[in-house]
Each structure stands twice: as structure tokens, then as C-alpha cells.
């Protein structure tokens, strides 16, 4: 589980040259595109508010069976590649109508880097998770980035309907607990990241990269 430095450098380079992520807006189903609510280059907003209760910017209207459905932006960004040729035309499901060029924030880039650089333990089931008592006490004493785990060591407890199942660390070698993605006792969906580990030798490099991102990105 060594970090491929070259690969990471490439990712970083890619983010630097193009700190955006492009989201394609697809038609959810067949229908006619009746109206575009945005123009090329318009800035759009995704859902906002504390509970994401304020809907995103309207993008276009898709009509099927006289049902005019307003399709809204799911993320912030700038509208590009707007297919104005589709206006009043029949479209199939999952047809790309426009793209939203989403500027990546510092946190999003760090998260992307970590997800590709760390060894991630993901949730095997939708359940509540807690750290094992031994790992908790070690983390309390030493803190993140210092605690080491070995193969077969109990790291997590999956709790669901009063059933508790221990989860053991599966990889050979000594890994360091680098990042915890979940809140104890909160329901975590299946396949969501729980803990990120890295090898001790990779730690300085990883920290250096994160420092660089924090400094260089606004």
C-alpha cells in the first residue's frame, strides 16, 4: 500500500492546471426540452441553506406527457457546453444537456487527494460505527497521525439493532491512522469511507502535500 508518488504528483499537477471538476447535467428521462433558464457562462448555484432546503438555480425545463419538469443545478459553477440545439427537440434519457464547471475548494482537493492516497476502510453495511476501545484510548493519548495498527487488530465496532460486530484491520504491515471520516453512533451508509490509513514512510510526504495545498489554494 505504498503511495505512488508519481501518480499523486500527477493528480496535484492536474488540480493545479485545472482546479475544476466538470459535472454533466443529464436528462433524467425522455422528453422535449422546452426552455433554457440559463445561458452559456452563467454562474449557477447548487442547493444551499443549513439543510440544503433552498433549491439550486433552474437550468432548463424538460416536458414529458405535458409534465413540465424544472431541472435545477446540483452544484455551484459556470455553465458550459450548453446544447441550445436541443431546444424543442426530443431527447433520450441521460442525454447531456449542459456542463457545470465547478471550482474545487481547498477542502474538496484535500479530500480527493486523501481518498486516492490513503488506504480507506469503507462501511460494509449501513449501520452505526464506533472506534474500538483500544484504538480510542490510543487516539486520545497520541492523536491522529501517530497511532499505528497491525493486521488483525480490532479497529471498529459495527453496531446495528444492538448487534455489535468487530471489524479488524485487514492489511499486512504497520499503518498509521490518518483520518476519521465518520461521527461515532451516527448512521453511516454502506460503502462510505470510515477511516483512512497510510504507511509511516508516506506520512511526511502526505503532510507536505496537504500543507502545500493549504498554502497555495485560496
Amino acid at each position: 500500500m505504498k503511495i505512488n508518488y508519481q501518480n499523486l504528483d500527477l493528480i496535484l499537477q492536474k488540480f493545479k492546471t485545472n482546479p475544476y471538476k466538470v459535472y454533466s447535467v443529464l436528462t433524467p428521462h425522455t422528453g422535449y426540452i422546452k426552455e433554457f433558464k440559463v445561458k452559456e457562462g452563467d454562474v449557477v448555484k447548487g442547493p444551499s441553506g443549513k439543510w440544503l432546503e433552498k433549491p439550486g438555480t433552474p437550468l432548463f425545463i424538460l416536458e414529458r406527457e405535458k409534465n413540465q419538469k424544472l431541472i435545477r443545478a446540483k452544484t455551484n459553477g459556470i455553465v458550459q457546453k450548453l446544447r441550445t440545439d436541443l431546444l424543442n427537440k426530443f431527447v433520450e434519457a441521460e442525454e447531456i444537456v449542459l456542463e457545470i464547471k465547478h471550482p474545487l475548494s481547498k477542502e474538496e482537493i484535500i479530500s480527493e487527494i486523501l481518498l486516492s492516497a490513503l488506504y480507506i476502510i469503507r462501511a460494509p453495511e449501513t449501520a452505526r460505527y464506533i472506534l474500538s476501545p483500544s484504538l480510542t484510548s490510543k487516539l486520545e493519548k497520541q492523536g491522529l497521525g501517530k497511532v499505528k495498527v497491525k493486521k488483525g487488530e480490532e479497529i471498529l465496532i459495527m453496531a446495528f439493532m444492538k448487534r455489535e460486530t468487530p471489524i479488524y484491520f485487514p492489511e499486512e504491515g504497520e499503518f498509521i491512522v490518518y483520518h476519521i471520516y465518520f461521527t461515532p453512533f451516527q448512521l453511516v451508509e454502506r460503502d462510505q469511507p470510515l477511516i483512512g490509513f497510510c504507511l509511516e514512510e508516506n506520512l511526511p510526504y502526505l503532510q507536505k502535500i496537504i500543507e502545500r495545498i493549504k498554502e497555495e489554494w485560496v
Partner: protein
Amino acid sequence: MKLEWHRKIKDLLDTAIYIKDIKGDDFLNISSLVDEISEVYENFYHYDEEFIENFISQIENRLKFIIEEGERTLTPYEIVKITRHPQRFTLQDILENVYDSYMELGGEGEINIDPAVICAKAMIVRKVGNELYFHQVMVIGHEKGHGEEFRLGGSAKPWGNEKALRYMKMAETEGIPIHFFIFTPGAYPIEDYPGSAQQIARNLYYMAKLKVPTVAFISEGGSGGAEAIGLADMRLMAEKGYYSVISPEGAAAIEAKLKEGRPPRELVEKCAKALKLTAKDNLEFGIIDKIIPEPPLGARKKDYEFFKKLRLELIKATDEVVLHTRSLKFLRKYVLSKQDTEDFKFFVNWDLDEDEIEILIENRYKKYRKMSQWAVCEPKSTFKTFFDFGHNLGLKFKNELKYRILRPGHKTFKKFLDELTTESSLLFKPVSDPVKTVYNLIVGKKIKTKLPAPLLTEEEISPYTSPLALEDKTVTCPEAEKYGCPDIWVPDLYGEYCGVCPNCGYHFPLEYKWYLNNLFDKNSVKTFNDNIASGNPLEFEGYAEKLKEARKRTGLKSALLSFEAKIGGISLVAVMLVGEFRQGTVGVAEGEKFIRAIELAKVTRRPFLALVHTTGGIRIHEGTLGLIQMPRCTMAVRDYVDAGGLYIVVYDNNSYAGPVASFLGSAPYQFALKSTRLGFAGPRVIKETTGQDVPPDYHSAENALKRGHIQGIWDRRELRKKLFTALLTMGGKNLYYR
């Protein structure tokens, strides 16, 4: 000597600042006068005695003129500002200056379950000749404080109102009168248990039959918050107070259809005028009983003459309530009406015996029943009045005979017969059982059950197709993103699916006629009091046109439909608040129709059902005449439930504010359909009052159920069945009457 002058100048400065706050910076150069006084006050020791003396007398004369002029040109919105000013007297000042001694209960200052509500046991002294008589009273009221933030301007939280109720019950136990003091801009609009609306409803329900004399004094009577402690036998109001269904700012926000932000100042002033919220207006409407005069531009915390007057009026008001329950009262009532000094001519004992308590409660019911009746718009003819009177009398006579005379006799006889049968069966059982068993073995006969199960069939309802179902199109469920619901074909949705998404169960709104046809037995719905129409008693500008449009669009005359109907053969009286008519808001017409319907249910001993298609609260365009429907209708509910009636409320779509905080919220059985939004105030008002955003599902039926505000969530597709079952299970053998 100098120190006294210094204090005097401080008082003059406070007065000038007060006038400036009320009348505005430009009023008769008041700003420059404030600066002038401040200058002298700050550099007081630089001036000689003669200057100070002349200065004081000159400023006093100028202020006197400004106050007189200010009083002469006082507008309703300035009155609102007076009531909210930090220099105005508060309940704490009243406790200090009106009562002879007091002890605050349930908290002190900030260390309190709710600092906006004060409960205190107090002593008020009556002087008769050389004798002193001590009366013990319970004082319950709002405390605005002189600018203290923790008092929240007198906005009672739900647990503050619960505290008030607790001490009302204590006063009832001890048999002492209650003096309520209303100083609130409105209740604090949060749903946390016990919930703003539900707690106000509980307070009103209890106050309807409080067994002690109650007197309310209103300085700032803001909406439902005021009603929570406002249902009293005698309602006094400060001359410079306001009593309104909504704050002028709230009314302006509604008129301007604002979703956030503050309404324009001119509109706020216009609404303050249109709402007719002053003491004079409320006295004319018959909503209050008496105005307590105040000094020009309102009483402040050091106006001791006002406190003396208030003390006299409070004793007189309590006397009057008590004397109304007594047979020998005429001379004392006459003398009391002439009483204008603190030296009383006689003593009135405020303790009531059982008969007097009964009269007290009866008087209270009659008083509120009469309120706002003058504003009911109903075509009248001598013949109709005579016919209605005769019909009601006949109905009463028939039902009294049936349920009071014949039914108890029948019940007693049946009970005796049951006892006799059981006794005799036990006596003959050892002999009859073997014979029966042998007989059954030979003949093969089985013992039949005696309990026929009531049946409910779908064929009993009138076939009805919602006009919404006639379109050939599909719609998207609002919850589609969350639950992946496919688009629904409209004829299916509004036909077979009863407006419910088959995938997630989201309830789309349906027109009120759907309920009339799909819930009740075929041809069983018979509406009554259809001629009672919503009017414009305040002559609110532009409202008459809005009413006309609503009437034309819906074909209804008010937002409340009252009718007799049957569900699976069970006869009941029902009302329905119709969302299509002014968002189902409640005004005089709706209140009167509700009371008449529940009275009919009481007389004819039938269950009473309130269906809430939608209600947006009390209709602001009818001012306090609308607001008073809260206590009026709740009293009718209490009367009905106490007499043995079964009252069920079913909410759908949106139900907010006054009605939920009174006659709907006080129902013992409340249910909501899925997707209902239920609460006291909407998100805009909550944000404005508490400064916090509320989650999108804050008012959902699920949350209302979690908080214990309702007893269950129903599906519209099963509503008829659910209602039928509820009537049978909740009503049981008491279905028609206990």
C-alpha cells in the same frame, strides 16, 4: 438641594428621550431639546443654582406643551411604540406599586423557567372606613422588563404558558381570584413540547371553566400570546395599550406578501390604523369592558397616580365579577359604579360557593358567546328568527326528553334486567347447562354471537371525480428525488389514488368537495347556516374586494362549512375549514358557525368532527373581532366535551396559528393526514422572532406526532375507514353521548 435638581433634570431628559422615541426626531424640535437637556445634565456642576432653577422650569413648560401636542396628534402606530417602550410600566412595577405585598412563584429574574412570564401570590388591600381588608390574589402576566434581553419582550415560551396554567390551577384550588396582566407582542413561536399552539389551546380550554373570578388587564395584547392568559370575566385595557390579532409589522408583511425582510414603514403605519387596535376601538367592538385612563403619551414606571387608579379599578372589576354571581347585589353594584376613590364604602367577600361558581362560569360563557355577534353578517327576517327560535326550542325539548328523561329510565331498567338475568342464569346454570349441551349435541346447533360488527362499504359513498383528474398529463411527486417516485398520471393520481403518491405516500392537495363526497355516506351531507357570510367589520381597505372575489370563485360565503352527515350510518355534526376561501382563515362568521354547529351537536347528542382542509390562522382583516373567536370557540368546545361529546379533529394540508392554538388544538383527539404541515407560526415569523432558521420538516405531521401534538397520522385513501373506526373505538358506547 442640588442633588434633587440633578435627579429632576435626569427625569426631564428621560421624558424628552421618551417623546423623541414615540413621536420621532423631527417632532417639535424634540431632538435639539434632548441635546440641550443632556448638555446641562452632563455639565451640571458648571452651572449656578439660579440657572438650573430657571432651566428646569423652562424645560418643564416646553415639555408640557410638547406632550399635549403629542397626545393630540397620537397615531395608532405611536400607541404601539408606547406599549413597547422600555420606559413604560411593566408587571414588575405593578406588583411593586399596585399590590401591597407579593411573592414571585416559579422563578425570579433570569433564573426562571420563562422570564417572560411572572406568577406571583399577591395581597391587595381594601380600605373601608377605618378598616383594612386584605384580599389574596394570584397574579399571572407577562414581564417585558425595562429593556432586559432575557425577558424576550414578554414573549412567553410554551413552558411559560404552561407555568401560567399551573398557577391558575393553584389559584383554583385555593379559591382566590386571578389577575392577568397582558404585556406581550405575541407568543414565542416554537414547537418544542408542549408547543406554542397546543399550550395556548390548553390554557384557553382550562380558563373556559376556571372556578375563580378572573380579571385581565391589557397593555400590549399581541395575538395568541395575549389569549393564553386573556380569557377573563372582566377585561380592562390601558388607554395607551393595543390589542390586536397581529402586530402591525406582521400584518404589513402579509399585505406586502413578503417572504423575508422588513416591510416598509408607511405600510406598517397604515396597517396599525387599519387593524383598529386601540383601546377605544376595542371598547366599541365590545371586546374589552373598560378603559383605564393613562396620563398623556402613556404611563411610565414612575407614574404613581396611574398605579393608584389601576389598583382601584382592579378591586372594582373583581367586585363586579363577584357581585354578578350573587342574588343580593343591586345596591352594591350601583354604589360600586360611583366609586372613584380608594376609600371603599363596603366590603365584598371574593370567596364563592358552589352555586356562585356555577353562575360565574355560566356568566363567562354568555359573555363570550355574545361578543362579536353584532358583526355576524346574516340575512334576518322576523319570520326566520321566529322559526329558528321555535325549531331550536323543539329540538332541545325533544332531545332533553329523549336523553334526560327517557334514556336514563331505560338505562336503569336495562341495568336492572341485566343484573336479574345474570343472577338467575347463575342460579339455573347447573341445571340448564347439561340440558343445553345434550340438546346442542343432538341438534348440532352452535351458540350464536350477539355482537353484530358494524359494516362500512365503499358503495355507500357518492361517486365523485375531482376536476383535477380530468387533465391528460403526468405530474412529478415533490419527494421524487428522495424516494425515486416515477411520474404519476393525473387521472390516476386524483382518481384511484385519492391524491396520494403510490410510491412514497406524499399527499397532494385536493379540493374540499372531494372530502364531502368521499368520506360521508351518499346523500347524507346536509349543510346548515350557509347564509352566514364573512364581512368586513373593520372596513379594512381593499378587503371587501378580496372577499367578493373569494365568494365568486368558491360559491361559499365563508371559509367554514357546517353540515350534518353520516359515516357508515353513524350520524354526526361536522365543520370544515375550506382552504379555497381566504386560506381557511377564521373570522366572525366562521367562529359563529363553528359555535352553532357544536351547540347543535350538543343538543342532538352527536359526535362532532372538525375537518381542516387548510387554515392560515385568524383572519387579520377582522382584527380583534377575529381574534376573540379563539376563546369563544374554545369555550364552546369545552362545554361540548364536558357535556359528554366526542370531538375529533383531522388536519390536512396546512394548519397554522390561532385556530390550532384554540378550538382545534384543544380537541382531545387530533389526527393529521400525511404531508400535513401543522404548527403555530410559519418559518418567516419564527426566523424573525427567534433569529433562527427552522428545518424544512419542522412543521411536518411526523414531528407533530413526535412532539405529542397529534394522536396519529392517517392516509387519505383510508380516511373514511379510519374515521369510522375512530368514531366506534373512541366513542364506543359513548358515541352519541356519555
